[in-house]
């Protein structure tokens, strides 16, 4: 239950496009708040708010450097969330592969009726 609750927080955090962009940026290495704010038309306090949400969701953590306080990706949590979505995707992909086969059959039938 506890794990599910925290995954809910993870997905809520991932629902926002700015926060997803921040994660994409952090995937290429740690960065300070100022560095993270630069590509966005946003103040540092606004970015800090997003960072807090990401931190609470366990998606990022603070690096060791006390002066820069860089943020870094917590890949384990992101992988967990992705895995959740990936299983749902696989379930539907199974359905849609059967649908592919059915559509091929329907197309063949239509061609027969046409000729």
């Amino acid at each position, binding site marked *: 239950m506890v794990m*599910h609750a925290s*995954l*809910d927080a993870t*997905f*809520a955090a*991932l*629902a926002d496009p700015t926060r997803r962009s921040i994660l994409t940026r952090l995937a290429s290495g740690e960065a300070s708040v100022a560095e993270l704010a630069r590509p966005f038309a946003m103040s540092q306090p606004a970015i800090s708010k997003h960072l807090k949400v990401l931190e609470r969701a366990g998606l990022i953590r603070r690096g060791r450097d006390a002066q820069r306080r860089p943020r870094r990706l917590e890949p384990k949590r992101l992988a967990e969330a992705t895995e*959740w*979505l990936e*299983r*749902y*995707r*696989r*379930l*539907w*992909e*199974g*359905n*849609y592969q*059967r*649908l*592919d*086969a*059915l*559509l*091929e059959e*329907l*197309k063949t039938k*239509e061609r027969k009726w046409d000729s």
Partner: protein
Amino acid sequence: MGQLKVTMPSDREIAMTRVFDAPRKLVFDAHTKPELVRRWLLGPPGWSMPVCEMDLRVGGKYRWVWRSDSDGSTMGIGGVYREIVAPERIVSTERFDEAWYPGEGLNTLVLVEEGGRTTLTQTMRYQSTEARDAVLKSGMEKGVAASYDRLAELLASPSEATR
């Protein structure tokens, strides 16, 4: 044909997009004729669809029930058609029999044809983030159970596993 993309466009939605190599009339038929629907909309391996009733008109109801071949457990879902524009758009409500989340879902199916191919977009909107995540998890848990079933089958028949 194409890769299925699953995204979460908002905190209450799940959206799926996929391309099919067929005109949308056929994709629409496959979503609206019960004898066709029950051939593909089966979920994890080892599940069949003994009940597939669809009264395809605005205000008409649909009801689907799946059954696990291995343990006989069932899962049912039903709803009402809100909007039907053949062969391009269907809006319907969605509610699981054993609803473990509040409210009902609203499904919007959109089919766009281009050059004989059809892009399907299915958006499911729930009344809360919790409801959406509950649905997402149900897929996961059932999917996982199914893959464990298959693993158990493989372990029970060593010749199969080593082939």
